[in-house]
């Protein structure tokens, strides 16, 4: 499929692949595609940022290239690296009399290049431009951000030994961040911005139905209401949509069709990951469960 022609087309594409998004998100995606700009998606952990990029790749019929960021990620891990062992072997196999300069040129050719995700995305021959997902950019450091800045504005990279490589078909770039730190304004300025919030009860229920169909209707309803109750508590880490789905699946595995206090108590770890949060939730568990069942 080529680039969607309207906001509605994006909406339909997302829905078809069981991603329950809203119109503002579809608008941002549509515009990012139309303008050829990267899309910067922020939101709490587990609200579906990465999933949005994955689903968009399916909608576009494009290859998904994912770059997971971490502290210390650098050009060698993100862009390219020379395959030194191969180069060494090659040069040792050459005749001693061979011309040194020619040999050096030979070993700095594309076949000695280890292509990392970013080079892969820029230098692509795909029929449809790929979707480049730069995941959790907040985990990388400032040096890497500065490097991305250049890449994202011109869609080109320079390799000293080879020259500059332009993207013939720029990829659709999605950058995600959990906001564990503030990403520099200069990078954001090159992107369109979208904040994904926790969904409403109705929307989250629709997500559970679509993504965890093994959970019975009543169970899906109970779990969604319970998670919304938990988010109201003052927790260190409120459960995300991903946790709701995990929890619904876990309870379905146990054969539950409704929730009760002991069942919730036993599986609470699917939703809350901090000891303090678990304690706080357990203090008011009967009320929370009661409230969720009644909702």
């Amino acid at each position, binding site marked *: 499929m080529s680039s969607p022609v309207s906001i509605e087309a994006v909406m339909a594409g997302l829905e078809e692949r069981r991603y329950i998004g809203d119109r503002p998100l579809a608008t941002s995606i549509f515009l990012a595609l139309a*303008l050829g*700009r990267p899309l910067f998606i922020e939101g709490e952990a587990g609200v579906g940022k990465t999933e949005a990029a994955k689903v968009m790749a399916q909608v576009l019929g494009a290859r998904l290239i994912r770059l997971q960021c971490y502290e210390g990620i650098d050009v060698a891990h993100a862009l390219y690296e020379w395959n030194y062992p191969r180069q060494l072997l090659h040069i040792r196999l050459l005749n001693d009399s061979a011309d040194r300069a020619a040999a*050096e040129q030979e070993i700095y050719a594309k076949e000695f290049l280890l292509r990392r995700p970013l080079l892969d995305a820029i230098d692509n021959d795909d029929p449809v431009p790929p979707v480049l997902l730069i995941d959790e950019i907040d985990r990388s450091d400032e040096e890497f951000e500065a490097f991305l800045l250049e890449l994202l504005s011109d869609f080109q990279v320079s390799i000293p030994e080879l020259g500059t490589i332009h993207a013939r078909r720029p990829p659709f770039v999605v950058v995600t961040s959990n906001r564990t730190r503030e990403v520099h304004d200069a990078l954001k*300025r090159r992107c369109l911005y979208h*904040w994904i919030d926790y969904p409403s009860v109705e929307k989250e229920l629709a997500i559970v139905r679509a993504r965890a169909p093994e959970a019975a209707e009543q169970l899906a309803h109970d779990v969604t209401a319970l998670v919304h109750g938990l988010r109201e508590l003052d927790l260190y880490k409120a459960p995300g949509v991903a946790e709701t789905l995990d929890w619904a699946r876990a309870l379905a595995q146990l054969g539950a069709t409704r929730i009760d206090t002991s069942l919730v108590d036993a599986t609470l770890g699917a939703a809350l990951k901090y000891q303090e949060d678990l304690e706080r939730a357990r203090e008011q568990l009967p009320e929370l469960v009661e409230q969720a069942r009644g909702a």
Partner: protein
Amino acid sequence: MAVQAPDLLPRLAAFARLLHDAGLDGGPGRLTTATKALGFIDLRDRAGFRDTLRACFVGRREELPVFEAAFDIFWAPPDPRVRAGFLPGKSRPLPLAPDRARSWMQALGLNQGAQRPGDLQEVVNESSGYSADELLRHKDFDEMSWEETEQVKRLLQQSPWRIAERRTRRSRPARRGEVDLARTARQSISSSGELIRLLHRQPQLRRRPLVLICDVSGSMERYSRLLLIFAHATARRERLETFVFSTRLTRITRLLRKREIEPALSEVSKRVHDFSGGTRIGEALAEFNRRWARRVLGHGAVVVLVSDGWDRGDPELLAREVSRLRRMSHRLIWLNPLLGSAGYEPVTRGMAAALPHTDDFLAAHNLKALDELGSLLAGLGRRRTVR
């Protein structure tokens, strides 16, 4: 791509200016993006129009409410039944400087027919979250004496300490350390694949981020100003995040970025509305731990908490939050101005509860004490203290 409506472009530029005055980036780059983006959508689609401008002009979550408010006020349809800019259930306050608010009201025709002149200005005040139980007094930092400022600045310049470094996951070429395979291989290519010399690498070092959390409640009044000057000077050379609290926590990192100290401090006093109120250290730290810790305590941050420990809140809560804060930071330093006065013992309930959970407990009553803090920060080891 041409925008369909003829008068849209100047309107859009004016909207960008309003956003700019309200603290968002409404510069030419974003304006150009927005203009282009609008070419792709149906302008009669109001929701799409709003979504488009949001995607183009907003860059941070905190900016979302400001954007929505500005949008409501600026693009409000002319409706005689409601006062412009006050769509029921929709309008939110817009943080504008008083003079800008006045000129915008004039420009948008908001003061005509308004029941109360100065609407926007009053909205601004409501936005600051006045509540009855907070002892709110608006402090003016503009009265700072010239000598005081100069003295602090001079002293901070004379003792140019820098915060200690930590190892990062990046490496740099070095004479010793781990063998750097990539560089070694690369070099041996020029000698036809013979390994002649091993090259080494070592982890790169970077300065630790510093987080300052300052108590500016009534009992800290005499010290708050001094501490803010300290924060402003430190922010010039370190990666510093600054928060102040009395009954509520406010992040002032961005406000302190102004180069000149006077405008920076008057900005702080304008935005922080509970200077010299009561103290709830526990609640303030709880808020920090939940809302900010994960965002500002990465990369081995050092936390400096400045407070006299006079707390009206629950000591148990305080102990719990201080202990959590410590677990999330590389080092937690508590500065107490009272520690400098003769005969002081940390016996207030709050202080007694929190003390076992801090790594260091230092004085902060004068410039010399701040200088000693500087030496401590400069001398921090690479490893965490054993706790």
